[in-house]
């Protein structure tokens, strides 16, 4: 089968009525479930996997892939409206999306998020299609030392969002790394920081920590302020919707750059799924005009950058999954499982004899992203009006659902205690201007960081930092962290010359 034949065959397979219907079902299920805190695309795919046994190959692919492909778009709804991240990839959306909602611009923020998400999804899929021939050498180039430094890079990027006191961001990022080490060390069997507690033996799960760190402090903030999420009159919802779409199109260059960041980060197995949003946000904040002053206060560019990247990264994360059979994220590992159920084995086979399946994936990314974004844009009005609801109605209901969301993660009551503890800690951090996002990043990347640190040490001892790519990345990292100081010195020297 030639490449062009595979392109068309891939499209025709998913446009068949039953397959298309399953794609629509996947879109509706995913959009509904990810709006519940703690219930992400992983839960939805896990629930639908048994269905794959009863479906035709392309029907199953349409159902499973569409659930995964559109979850990032729907994730933005709760992030923007209630500062509750729908999943680990939508945390950075909160930083500017939620303040926009509070300023009465929920409609504009949602519309910009959905449009950017669709554009990012299309961009990611195109990059995936174009990169198929040049995949292997790229990923093989990176070894454990490079992965370890890339993880440090991710944490440092997020810490640069911490305003003048970047040390605070770094400290909290490192705290996240340490929290990730709680539990029984898988290799040595040593319990670390568990204090004999059974819940802690399994380590701290991401979902209860995320709900605790982000949702609970925002609910406390609503209680403290005693007013609805949006204290302002909602601006004209129709014009907000149009404005959001216009914003995404006007900032097309930011969309492309953020999508590229998303694809690039998404390509790195284990790293991309949870950090692409932070990388894109950090990139936009560092490069956009006056972003240092306006980001975090409700700048639509913050929303556009994050949502372009989160959907574009899915195209990137498919690259190692399809080419080498290395799932780019834990959700993709489930998609991978679904593919195996219907007899499709990622790796060499999917790039040769089953190339039509690969292109079905690509078409699904494009079509499902566009349909979801359109559907979400149509329902913006009721979504935006939710920000006007009194906090006395919202707070108890979201709290109750958050408690179940934390529990649903592993059916363990201890996770609710974890959520409550991180809720109080998150409130404390927020009250005193310590950024919470780096903690999550450290927690997500901790196990990978530890594995790569140990492997790098075994292979090269501490000399691993001197390897060419590792060394270059470290120098770049130091430059990024030290850039404001270097810039200030440069400006001072220029001033003295004049």
């Amino acid at each position, binding site marked *: 089968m030639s490449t062009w034949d595979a392109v068309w065959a891939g499209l025709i397979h998913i446009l068949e009525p039953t397959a298309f219907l399953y794609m629509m079902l996947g879109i509706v299920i995913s959009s509904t479930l990810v709006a519940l805190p703690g219930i992400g695309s992983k839960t939805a795919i896990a629930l639908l996997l048994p269905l794959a046994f009863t479906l035709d190959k392309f029907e199953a692919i349409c159902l499973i892939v569409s659930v995964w492909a559109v979850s990032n778009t729907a994730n933005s709804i709760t992030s923007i409206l209630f500062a509750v991240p729908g999943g680990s990839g939508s945390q950075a959306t909160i930083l500017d999306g939620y303040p926009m909602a509070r300023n009465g611009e929920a409609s504009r923020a949602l519309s910009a998020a959905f449009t950017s998400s669709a554009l990012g999804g299309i961009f990611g899929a195109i990059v995936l299609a174009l990169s198929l021939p040049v995949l292997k050498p790229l990923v093989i180039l990176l070894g454990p030392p490079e992965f370890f430094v890339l993880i440090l890079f991710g944490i440092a990027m997020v810490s640069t969002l911490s305003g003048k006191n970047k040390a605070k961001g770094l400290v909290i990022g490192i705290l996240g790394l340490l929290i990730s080490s709680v539990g029984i060390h898988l290799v040595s069997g040593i319990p670390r920081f568990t204090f004999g507690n059974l819940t802690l033996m399994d380590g701290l799960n991401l979902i209860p920590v995320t709900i605790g760190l982000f949702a609970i402090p925002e609910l406390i903030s609503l209680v403290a302020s005693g007013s609805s999420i949006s204290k302002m009159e909602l601006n004209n919802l129709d014009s907000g919707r149009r404005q959001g779409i216009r914003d995404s199109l006007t900032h097309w260059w930011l969309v492309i750059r953020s999508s590229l960041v998303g694809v690039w980060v998404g390509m790195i197995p284990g790293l991309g799924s949870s950090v692409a949003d932070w990388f894109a946000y950090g990139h936009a904040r560092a490069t956009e005009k006056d972003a240092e002053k306006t980001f975090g206060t409700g700048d639509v560019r913050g929303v556009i950058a994050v949502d372009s990247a989160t959907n574009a990264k899915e195209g990137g994360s498919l690259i190692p999954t399809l080419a080498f059979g290395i799932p780019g994220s834990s959700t993709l590992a489930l998609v991978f499982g679904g593919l195996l159920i219907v007899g499709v084995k990622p790796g060499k086979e999917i790039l040769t004899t089953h190339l039509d399946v690969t292109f079905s994936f690509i078409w699904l990314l494009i079509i499902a992203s566009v349909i979801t974004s359109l559907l979400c844009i149509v329902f913006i009005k009721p979504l935006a009006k939710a920000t006007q609801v009194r906090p006395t109605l919202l*707070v108890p209901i979201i709290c109750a659902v958050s408690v179940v969301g934390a529990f649903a993660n592993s059916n363990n009551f201890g996770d609710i205690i974890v959520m409550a503890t991180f809720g109080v800690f998150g409130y404390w951090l*927020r009250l005193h201007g310590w950024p919470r996002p780096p903690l999550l990043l450290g927690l997500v990347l901790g196990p990978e960081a530890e594995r790569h640190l140990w492997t790098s040490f075994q292979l090269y001892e501490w000399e691993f930092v001197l390897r060419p790519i590792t060394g270059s990345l470290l120098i770049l990292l130091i430059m990024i962290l030290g850039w404001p100081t270097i810039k200030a010195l440069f400006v001072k020297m220029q001033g003295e010359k004049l």
Partner: protein
Amino acid sequence: MSLSASRAILGLSLLALFTYTLFAGLDMPFRASMLPVFASSLAIPLTLLAIYIERKTDNQITTQADESSGDLAVSESEVSADAFRRVRYFFLWFACLIASAHLIGFLIGLPLMVFIYLLAHREPLTLSIFLSSMVLVILYGGFQKGLVLPLPEGVLTMMLFGG
């Protein structure tokens, strides 16, 4: 407790935590200790630096308002005495919410606590009943039946009615 005292306690608590993790890490086998020791050794000087910068910034007349902090900013209305009183009540209710889920089960405890919260905030009775029922529908229909999530019965109800 004043805000500045709370801020100082937060910084010092982090410092104490990292010192503990460093010493605890040093007692572990090399492989298990690598990340804790590496991370704690970096975190201790960085925490000291963060506290120093924070104190220095506090002493300056300029405020932090000229640059965003990378997290959602705290508004004036959230740090008033009245706001802290509301937050204390919220913490009490939240603790009761978790305790009720544990003692009388998710399906009874959570809707009940939602109902109490709504009534305590002078919401109309019919609306309170409707919203609490909606929570029950979400829990039972959405989570227990739809997602096949076994929501546990409470310890107290198990004792009284034998599950």
